[in-house]
């Protein structure tokens, strides 16, 4: 009896060998364009570089698949253009003080309330894919006071503050689908995360975004970048 299971495949296919003159143009069908705003209080570009993920600096246009918006960046992001970008299938990463921008670009999708203090916060991993690599709990490091605190959102909580903390139950990392795209938001900064487990969490977040953008699984996204989830898990476990 046949043992195969019905699946869908999204890898690039085959072309002529040797390839024709338009192979680069063909390849663009399977590649992702990533723009990153200039560093401010945060620097997600550093995380991308640590993963060998290629990206270009944001120059005011939105012709990319993924856009990473650093907290406190000097680059101007237009709320209407941002909304259009996500609505048509783009994937946006934003952190901390981009909260005002998100509230204007995606009215009603994010509800912010108050602000938090600097320090370490014990967190629970809610998302099953993240949990399968990093485990059920972690610690996130808030390097600055007055970080934007999420009350709730019209989406999925990926990481939340653990019970017994000052922010118990508050979402710290969320994913909100909007139109054909999605927005990922973290209350904490990437550059502040010092421990191996915290760094792995950020890398996983990037993979999560890429997998969402590619409409594939976390495992597939990591495979496409040559990143081993098993190796990440070992690093997270210390």
């Amino acid at each position: 009896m046949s043992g195969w299971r019905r699946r869908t495949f999204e890898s690039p296919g085959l072309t002529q060998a040797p390839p024709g003159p338009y192979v680069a143009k063909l390849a663009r069908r399977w590649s992702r364009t990533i723009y990153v705003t200039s560093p401010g209080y945060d620097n997600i570009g550093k995380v991308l570089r640590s993963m060998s993920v290629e990206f270009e600096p944001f120059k005011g246009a939105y012709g990319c698949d993924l856009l990473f918006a650093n907290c406190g960046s000097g680059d101007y992001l237009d709320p209407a253009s941002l909304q259009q970008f996500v609505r048509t299938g783009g994937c946006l990463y934003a952190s901390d003080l981009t909260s005002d921008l998100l509230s204007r670009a995606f009215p009603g999708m994010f509800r912010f309330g108050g602000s938090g203090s600097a320090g370490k916060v014990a967190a629970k991993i809610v998302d099953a894919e993240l949990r399968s690599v990093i485990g059920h709990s972690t610690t996130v490091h808030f390097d600055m006071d007055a970080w934007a605190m999420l009350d709730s959102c019209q989406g999925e909580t990926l990481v939340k503050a653990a019970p017994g903390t000052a922010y118990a139950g508050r979402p710290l990392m969320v994913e909100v689908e909007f139109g054909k795209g999605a927005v990922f938001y973290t209350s904490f900064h990437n550059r502040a995360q010092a421990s191996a487990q915290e760094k792995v969490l950020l890398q996983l977040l990037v993979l999560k975004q890429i997998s969402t953008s590619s409409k594939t699984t976390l495992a597939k996204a990591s495979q496409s970048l040559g990143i081993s989830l098993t190796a990440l898990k070992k690093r997270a476990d210390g």
Partner: protein
Amino acid sequence: MRAGQNQGRHVVGIDLGTTNSVVATVDDSGAVVVLPNASGGEITPSVVYFEPDGTAVVGEEAVHATAIDPENGVQLIKRAMGTDSPLRIRGERHTPESVSALILRQLVSAATGEPAGAPVSTVITVPAYFGAREREATKAAGEIAGLDVLGLLDEPVAAAAHYGLLSGRDRTVLVYDLGGGTFDTTVLRISGGAVDVVATDGHHSLGGADVDQRLFDVIMERLGDQLPADELDQVTGDRAMLADLALGTEAAKKDLSVRTTRQVTVRTPTRRATVTVTRADLDTACGDLFDTTAEIIDRVLRAAKLDGRRDIDDVIMVGGSSRILALSPRLTAMLGKTPQLSDPDLAVAKGAAVRAHHLAGTAQYRALTATVARSLGSGGATVRRAGQVVTVTPRAVGILIEDSFDPSGQRSFVEHLVAANAPLPAEVTATRFGTIVANQQSVRVQVYEQAGPVPSVETEHNRRVLDGELTGLGALPAGSVITITIRIAADGRLAVIAHEPQSGSELVLEAYVEGVIDGPEAERLTRLVALTKVRG
């Protein structure tokens, strides 16, 4: 020991037809015999009716029950083989494979006299024009029914194998096989009792059922001339009346093979209406269908590079619908010789039985070759290869290629590696394909087969049969060669192997066949069929 049994295992050939099915074997004396169904008949309608308690009734009783209660009956299921056509009947989820499995279970159980689960090895016949999906689905149906499927055999080949045994001569033969639901035409050479297919072609949805529908339309039109509109509406709106009329139509079609005129009577609540149909009516209504079969014959002769009048020794007609009288004169005019009607309902099952015993290497097969050799007085020379077949692939098979020579970067096409009518088994390896993106970790391999009457590179003229992914490629530049090997087995089943030569490692191609159930679904259906009570 019951006929056809070999070391405790029954060996049978099964003609799993669109409208009717037949089981045959070779007995201990070497005679090819048809095994009776539950009613003692040779031919079993391929119809399943599900009773309220879930019992599956197969055969003549199912035909009548389905006519009255079509929601709980299934007919012509063979036309859905190889398609995603789930059926929900009496709360159970069925597929074409599971319904076919129920038919097979009942056929085998009645033929062998054994309960379900007894060891039975079989060859199941399929239309020559069946592609990879339909063949996989047919084999899956056999396995779900608990049968040991030794192989699949093309119906015209089976018929020719039977004909070759009877004639005992080396011939070039054209088989015209018009079954209940499909049409196949095949050119083959019979030599020493073995059959070598030269070319094959056909139509997936042209058969006796279409002839019935055309005649039914004629009858309805004439009924409309006799009945007031409200009474005609009563007929068309009454399931039982329509069912009676459908059965009457089929009977009329059969009768028109032996007489020129036939009356069909329809009872409405207030009157009896009688419609007269003639053989000429049938010929006129079905003329375009018969023309289509002639076009396909032309095509298969071109593919075989043969002249029909000069190179074909015999034309044999098989399949119940080949009895339609208008067909023989058409073929005579076309090919210059009178076709022979060769045991049209049973020849396919008998040929399959010979093939099954040949594959199983039974004592009955040895007895058969000895018996035939004696009867032909040839000392065994003419039948030394009885049961052996060399078939061809009915459709070209190839790989989907993203075109890096196209300036738009958007074009894809199918590059055929195995041509239509290539002798089977076939194996072709190509090294002219490569990766598109630098460092891509996996590559998608999509296998397509020709969907239209002639091979074409355009994707829309092909249909996908396998889809898979070769993983673990490592850091390779764009354009790195991926070696693709396509293997087609003797029974037309397809396998594809992809290999990355730089690493030298064999890489696993995970593949699935579209339109065919996957492993977990096959397991579910096997349980479902095993738990279903089946009777004839």
